[in-house]
């Protein structure tokens, strides 16, 4: 639906209804105008109604619960900001914050760079292009649970395929799950595997909106493919890169399924919490320990953190590519 004022008809739009210029307008006209004014609101209303019910209300409710001691199966008890004091003096919270950050960087940065490279390659004319493009999206279509389960087997210590391959080249078996960086690396690989194709397709779509004229002009000026990539493709993709960076950052801050299943369904993230993300920490508070008030506190702090991260991210990405 496009909205147009009767005074300035847009070419191609319906012409104003007959009689609209006369001083006495018929009821039909007024009804039509009322509809034109209100229709957009009616059409967007369902989203906002659903958002209020399933987005805003839980958000406010969570904030309210975070001010209480609320054990699963008992009454709520007012605490004020005590849960927040508990959270900010808890070393486990800082640990999970740090792990969320390191796993986030380990997974997001390679993921976006690989995606960019793949998209650049797929942008060339090549045989079986559609096949490769569809293949890219396949990992994204598999469920997190299935992917994490398979990777947890691959990274098994005693009978895992990865350790077997390492053994072939003479490297000792690695205890992926119990090691600090090895566990984070394994989880990052699951995330990279699942999301790289998705991001590559987004980049590909962005690349196809860049005018071919620019490449031709660059080629005439003697720019190599790499120079074309740097000076034409990258600047042209700026909004797309910003978008994927923001989405990936949000995804990384909410990382949950992969480390949970990698850890055998336990939210403690290893003996030293070496892969306990904020999501796992929250789940552990709520569902292992039954402290819903504390879980709600973690949820709210995570929410605020994501907002800050997105703002910082946007600022950085804007500055990087002037």
């Amino acid at each position, binding site marked *: 639906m496009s909205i147009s004022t009767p005074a300035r008809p847009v070419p191609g739009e319906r012409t104003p209804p007959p009689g609209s210029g006369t001083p006495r307008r018929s009821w039909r006209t007024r009804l039509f105008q009322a509809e034109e004014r209100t229709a957009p609101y009616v059409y967007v209303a369902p989203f906002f109604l659903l958002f209020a019910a399933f987005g805003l209300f839980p958000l406010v409710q969570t904030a309210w619960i975070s001010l209480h001691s609320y054990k*699963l*199966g008992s009454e709520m008890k007012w605490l004020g900001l005590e849960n927040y004091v508990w959270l900010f003096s808890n070393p486990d919270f800082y640990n999970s914050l740090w792990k969320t950050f390191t796993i986030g960087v380990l997974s997001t940065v390679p993921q976006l760079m690989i995606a960019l490279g793949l998209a650049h390659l797929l942008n060339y004319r090549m045989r079986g292009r559609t096949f490769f493009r569809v293949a890219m999206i396949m990992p994204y279509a598999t469920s997190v649970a299935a992917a994490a389960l398979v990777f947890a087997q691959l990274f098994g210590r005693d009978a895992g395929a990865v350790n077997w391959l390492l053994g072939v080249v003479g490297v000792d078996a690695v205890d992926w799950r119990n090691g600090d960086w090895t566990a984070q690396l394994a989880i990052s690989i699951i995330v990279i595997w699942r999301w790289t194709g998705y991001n590559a397709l987004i980049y590909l779509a962005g690349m196809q909106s860049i005018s071919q004229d620019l490449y031709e002009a660059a080629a005439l000026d003697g720019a190599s493919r790499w120079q074309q990539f740097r000076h034409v493709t990258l600047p042209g993709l700026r909004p797309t890169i910003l978008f994927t960076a923001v989405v990936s950052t949000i995804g990384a801050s909410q990382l949950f399924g992969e480390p949970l299943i990698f850890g055998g369904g336990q939210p403690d993230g290893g003996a030293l919490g070496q892969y306990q993300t904020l999501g796992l920490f929250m789940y552990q508070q709520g569902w292992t320990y039954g402290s819903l008030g504390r879980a709600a506190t973690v949820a709210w702090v995570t929410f605020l953190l994501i907002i800050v991260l997105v703002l910082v991210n946007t600022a950085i990405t804007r500055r990087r590519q002037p």
Partner: protein
Amino acid sequence: MTTTPRTTPRTTRVRTARTTLAAAVAGTLLLAACGGGGGAAADDGTTELTVSLFGTFGYEELGLFDRYEAEHPGVTITYESTQGEDKYWPALQTRLASGSGVADIQGIEVARIADVVANQAELWTDLRNTPAAGSIGNYVEWKEPAATTPDGAVLGLGTDIGPMGICYRSDLLAQAGLPTEPAALSARMTSWEDYVALGREYQAAAPAGSAWMDSAGGFYNAIVSTEQTIYYDQAGTLVHDSNPAVRAAFDTAAAAGQAGLTARLEQFVDPGWDAGFASGSFATIACPSWMIGYIKGKAGDAGSGLWNVTTLPGGAGGNWGGAYLGIPASSENVEEAAELIAWLTAPERQAEVFASAGNFPSTTGGIEMVADATDPWFNGAPIGQIFSTSTANAPVQILGPEDGVIKSAMVEALLSVEANGVAPADAWNSALSTVSNQVS
């Protein structure tokens, strides 16, 4: 990506959108309305009982529900099970709190019973006033008191208990030159120190890639499960940090982990633990009776005859696990549900369940019936006698509401010792700080 233009008339599209929206809203309302209460007595005189359990109780597998339905016309049983108790319990708690969605019969793990008795007595039915009242006196001495409130209300009937033995791979022990017969092995193990010493002997001659036991956490848990006082004293005060038995068990297990006697596989969590029963990455494991069925399942037919069972070192008694069946107070079929749980937990049924799943009877009558049971899969081990002895020698454990939190903190700390090389004293301190951070 189709290139044909869309020819759908505009009005149709709008109507479709409206229909979709209506359907979405209706679906949402429907979802909100669902998740209602458990079974209800229908008008035609039939009763629908819902049963919700975790893990393997053995009832469905044995066909006990079908048999009960056949013997009791007019009763239909709907059964569901969650594999992990750690997921089952929180879900049950939210349903209990919201007052809807609970089944007529719910399983309660023994680690939760103290919490139920202390904090949620009003959410469960007192079985003294139901047809199940007659079954309350059938149990080993500590089973019912643990499910009884200070006012005397009995909130659950016991299904099974967890007396312990040592399960071991006779083929691996033979390869390392250790005794393989239960009696001969038992003679070499008169204490936990002997068990560890035997482990050092095993490790010196063991097949490559095989450790003496599965995990330091499991070892620790076996030791504390033979104690009377563990994390709480008789008055209900937390003593986990001052009880010398807990510290001693922790240090013994940590030392075994440091010495490389463990396979560093976290129980029930690490997929390698499950695989280890078949592949032989560990030779022994302290096994409660309910783990008998688990080992069979993981090792499969190929494992038959390789595994055997002997008594705990020195013939010690203990209890690790076990469960209860309770009826939530919101159930609309208390009478019928009570009849069913009395039937399910009767000595005869417990004996049947033990024979098929390994869950050891908690009634004295049931224990008598299985006293002579042997298990062909375990080389004909006299499991009835081994677990009966362990039951007879077991102390009356004092349970507390936060036992589970403390236990998992200890197990996690021990994993950090064996797998990450953390010093035992540091691991102990971090376990204590986890507990104090969580239990307040």
